[in-house]
């Protein structure tokens, strides 16, 4: 079992002030954030969602957040899961092409329409589609929407995943993985800022 990943990524050392806050005040949240990580990245049964795909999504998502150290953490695990240099290069190219600012998106037509904000709908480039394969290429388009404009989500994006060979179970796990990372990355970023001010 890995050491607590949030502590590792946030640079929280055993015995430090923030270690004490996390362990004494919110021990259950700390334990289960780690169990969430373990269940997503070292599951008892990987089902229809291979470890290489899980870490590839994590590298892409950390890259979309501009979080270099978190991205490197997942790159190391993606390499251990057997990624080729071509796959890593394709993910980097997609991060460069896809990074933007969020959250944006549209509301149901009505009083909130004035708050609709436009932004890109990401499509994986043809030259990267081959290295990623159809499953990951379709997943990356969904992941980009979840990261930057989740309020634009609609059934066709899920159906595209199912059509690319993802099962319903695997789509649920992928959704959890992307959503969990949105949490983990923010906790790490927040705790780092707090640690620097302690």
């Amino acid at each position, binding site marked *: 079992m890995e050491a607590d990943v949030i502590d590792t990524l946030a640079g929280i050392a055993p015995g430090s*002030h923030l270690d004490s*806050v996390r362990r004494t*005040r*919110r*021990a*259950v*949240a700390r334990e*289960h*954030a780690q*169990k*969430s990580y*373990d*269940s*997503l990245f070292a*599951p*008892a049964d990987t089902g229809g969602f291979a470890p290489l795909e899980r870490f590839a999504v994590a590298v892409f998502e950390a890259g*979309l*957040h501009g979080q270099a150290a978190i991205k490197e953490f997942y790159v190391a695990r993606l390499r251990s899961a057997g990624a080729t240099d071509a796959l890593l290069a394709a993910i980097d190219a997609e991060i460069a092409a896809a990074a933007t*600012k969020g*959250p944006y*998106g549209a*509301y*149901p037509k*009505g*009083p*909130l329409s004035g*708050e609709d904000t436009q932004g890109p709908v990401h499509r994986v480039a043809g030259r990267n589609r081959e290295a990623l394969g159809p499953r990951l290429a379709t997943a990356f388009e969904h992941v980009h929407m*979840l990261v*930057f404009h*989740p*309020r634009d*989500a609609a*059934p066709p994006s*899920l*159906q595209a995943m*199912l*059509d690319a060979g*993802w*099962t*319903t*179970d695997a*789509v*649920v796990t992928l*959704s*959890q993985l992307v*959503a*969990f990372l*949105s*949490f*983990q*990355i*923010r*906790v790490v*970023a*927040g*705790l780092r*800022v*707090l640690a620097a*001010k*302690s």
Partner: protein
Amino acid sequence: MTDKTVPQSGHVVPAVFTRDMLDWLPWLEPVAADRMTERQLASLVDAARVKSDYFRLLARDPDVLEARTRTDKDIFYNPDAGLPRAERELAAATTSRLNGCIYCASVHARFAATYSKRTGDVDKLLAEGVGADLDKRWNAIVAASVALTETPISFGPQHIDALRDVGLDDDAIVDVINAASFFNWANRLMLSLGEPTPAAS
């Protein structure tokens, strides 16, 4: 055999942020209540959640659901020190307002109003958005939640200073970070796996 989404039609689509009760309609098939395994039932943590399409859908991956739920409950319900419950809910409602999760915002605006008794301020946040002027303490919590929710994350030392200025200690600041971050998790599930509709009265 390719799986299919579950199209929803004929329902009313809420077009404003509200504290009213909403229901949630799934876009993927939940596990049927009478076909849940023991592991899936245990992953709900609260047995009553077997009535919820949302939780029975997430029960397709029970280990992740259970860990998610126990993380959620400790961040929001643990009464030991830190931020008052009302203000953890304020961070959740703010995050949901900015991401645009009408369902999540309805639930956590209700909790924020109930625990704070500041219904007018909560309604102002829902109506005007995250730029609403509430009071100095709530503005600092809202601004920190916004900075944590934006991508790239814009949370910085100035947010810590502002939170300390209005009386938050490090336990409370960790609660703001946890609550806003957790709703970036929750919002993405609720927004992307289904949609809200007014609760049947």
